[in-house]
């Protein structure tokens, strides 16, 4: 079956512009996660969705970052007024139910470059 997909794969934008990143999780997966990965670094948790609700937004770096999920499926991560420090790979993952023992299936990521 289809895995997690993300679009765009690459995004170059100018400082101050808004960007939207999209994640299509595996069908039927109720849990969806967004992470940020800076060059050569590990994963920084951003936000977790269970269905359309976000019980854990603790990782969002600032109020310029927001995310939503609709229909228990597609999610968009929006970054307003982008800054150069926002440059990173943004990874999305989904899992069947969000339990700690579930496998997280990751997409290939969106590489964001802010000039």
């Amino acid at each position, binding site marked *: 079956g289809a895995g*997690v997909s993300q679009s765009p794969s690459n995004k170059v934008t100018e400082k101050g512009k808004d960007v939207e990143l999209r994640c299509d999780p595996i069908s039927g997966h109720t849990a969806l*996660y967004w*992470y940020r990965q800076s060059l*050569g*670094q*590990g*994963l920084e*948790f951003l936000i977790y969705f269970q269905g359309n609700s976000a019980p*854990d937004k603790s990782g969002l770096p600032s109020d310029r970052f927001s995310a939503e999920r609709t229909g228990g499926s597609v999610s968009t991560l929006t970054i307003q007024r982008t800054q150069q420090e926002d440059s990173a790979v943004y*990874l999305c*993952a989904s899992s069947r139910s*969000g*339990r*700690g*023992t579930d*496998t*997280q299936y*990751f*997409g*290939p*990521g969106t590489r964001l470059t802010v000039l």
Partner: protein
Amino acid sequence: TQLLEQSPQFLSIQEGENLTVYCNSSSVFSSLQWYRQEPGEGPVLLVTVVTGGEVKKLKRLTFQFGDARKDSSLHITAAQPGDTGLYLCAGARGDDKIIFGKGTRLHILP
């Protein structure tokens, strides 16, 4: 606060050598997972361990969960160039909140 410390951060060894990487915490986890990430791709799950003292083998990879469920190790026997990648551990607490370590970047030289 970094709850999961991975060591070493970087490791470069010759093909055929053995190695061990570690994932340590002062917190107890209900389960722990190891993922491997290759350049340009998302991480892929290698194993999940849930019982203190548990040992799981995956071909040349041996994973151990500490008795107190605060730490884990990954041992690779006779490393091969295909083992190159970023190894991430991820611990789940009782509330199912999942925390990733910063990873060990492994490079196997042919």
